[in-house]
């Protein structure tokens, strides 16, 4: 009982600690004036302002696009690489692990400047800012995506399951994508959400590579900082809610799929 109470206390304390910043940001954004100790007058005009601003909506669209595209590409590339490693060449696993871990050690600003200086004068489509940004994010999220997928593959004993599927008449590639991938979907989802959070919150890379060419919500937020603190807070809250809804949506779809699989 004592243990339960103390655990509950710790959980509540951590929850308050994590929620406080967003709650106060929200409070700051809905008061008309907050120049003294206590705020005066409620208002939603900042929310109305940003939600009716077409630029903001476009920037959200760009952020979502640039968050999802690298994750999808990275997942496909890693899954194909893992298929080759599991089925044909297990000895290459250690090299892939090393290569995938290197981006951990690189600062975002270094990757961004390196990519920009290397590809700015390259022929199309490599010099396209969106292509550069997608490639850079693929590098950035590679360690998180790789480790998540690798751990999930280890858990399901993928080589043995592929062998079992082969004995039942499936080809190796079919076995990998029809049997193994559905079993590691939760691992892929967690890695994808983590990666999406990293990309969604990034400002350094998008500002260096994208800048005015490709204005994402983070760049929009940065520009808003010079206009009004309350407007910035409102944007922060909206971005938080969007991230929350996306994460909840992904979890909902994943759980629905898993439950459907079990009930079939």
């Amino acid at each position, binding site marked *: 009982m004592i243990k339960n109470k103390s655990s509950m206390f710790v959980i509540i304390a951590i929850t308050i600690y994590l929620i406080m910043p967003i709650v106060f940001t929200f409070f700051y954004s809905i008061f008309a004036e907050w120049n003294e100790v206590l705020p005066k007058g409620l208002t939603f005009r900042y929310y109305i302002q940003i939600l009716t601003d077409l630029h903001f909506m476009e920037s959200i669209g760009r952020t979502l696009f640039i968050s999802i595209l690298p994750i999808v590409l990275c997942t496909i590339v890693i899954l194909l690489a893992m298929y080759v490693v599991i089925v044909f060449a297990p000895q290459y696993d250690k090299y892939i692990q090393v290569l995938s871990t290197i981006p951990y050690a690189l600062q975002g600003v270094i990757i961004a400047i390196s990519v920009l200086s290397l590809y700015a004068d390259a022929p199309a489509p490599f010099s396209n800012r969106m292509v550069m940004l997608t490639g850079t994010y693929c590098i950035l999220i590679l360690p998180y995506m790789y480790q998540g997928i690798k751990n999930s593959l280890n858990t399901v004993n993928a080589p*043995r399951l592929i*062998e079992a599927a082969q004995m039942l008449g499936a080809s190796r590639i079919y076995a990998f994508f029809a049997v193994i991938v559905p079993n590691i979907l939760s691992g892929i989802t967690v890695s994808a959400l983590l990666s999406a959070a990293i990309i969604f919150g990034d400002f350094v890379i998008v500002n260096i590579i994208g800048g005015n060419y490709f204005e994402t919500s983070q760049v929009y937020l940065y520009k808003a900082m010079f206009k009004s603190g309350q407007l910035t807070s409102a944007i922060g809250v909206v971005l938080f809610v969007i991230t929350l809804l996306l994460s909840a949506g992904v979890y909902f779809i994943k759980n629905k799929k898993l439950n459907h699989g079990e009930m079939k």
Partner: protein
Amino acid sequence: MGYIIFEGINKYFGTNHVLKNIHLEINQGDFVTLLGSSGCGKSTLLRCLAGLETISSGRIFLDGEDITEKNPKDRNVGMIFQQYSLFPNMSAFDNIAFGLKMKKMAKDEIEERVYKAIKMVELVGKEKQVPAQLSGGQQQRVALARAIVAEPKVLLLDEPLSAIDAKLRRSLQARIREIHKELKITSIFVTHDQDEAMIMSDVIHLFNNGTIEQSDKPIDLYTAPKTPFAAGFIGHYNILTKEVFSKMIHKDFEGTYDIAIRPETIELSSIPHEVDNQAYQFIATIKDHTLHGNVLRYTLFVNDIEFKADVLFRSFKLFHHGKPVYVSIEKHNCLIL
């Protein structure tokens, strides 16, 4: 001509010669066991037949067809693995139906066959559960149903019962035998457990270090091992050199080979027996005893030679440690290796 023929199979893992020129024929409908200790090559041979390992040289024929180069999925071979290897996200039904779906069978036929297999492995009512909701024994029965439902030409069982507790293992052994009798699928069973091999098999191929040491019916392998390795692996034979045996029976023993004596053929008595010239009799001293269920195994010594004798545990009347006992061994039970 055998239904399955291994012709001069060699297999190397790097420089390690795992299978050494294996020649083996298996008849259609037989339940055959590959018996041997870990690392002797028995599972590798099974995996070569399944197509999960390539062979370094030799040919494999199944039902008159050379399948050496064939893809595993095209060999029509069913396999059960030690770790069950069920698909975790699929129900028992979907696991069993997987192979039939790969064969693109009609939905009605899949359903009919799967339910028949579920009934056969006594899993009615469990078909909607996923592997995590099933016990180890139930999972292995799903694996069995999954392997037999598509009616493969051969059923391969790679130590399928080694992760299951003793009681359940016995019931599954019986179930597998019954299913084999019913379906008459040629089956190859791999195990390191000699008792399991004796119970299950029509023929046992005893493996030792990449070669087949002896191939025989269980009773022949047990009563007439042909090599010291076979005698040492099967049962708990006392293996003695000619000199040691002569010292033990206080007589010169003719011949140049080793002698193998099964512990249960050695008779112990506190009073001397009347023996004819068809048996050896001598006095030995009890050193120790261990209980093996219904059998008491005595360790005795005579002239510093230690040997074992089994006595059926019918009463608590034990031979006492340090006391002399009369030992008699029928001559025909002394096998010359």
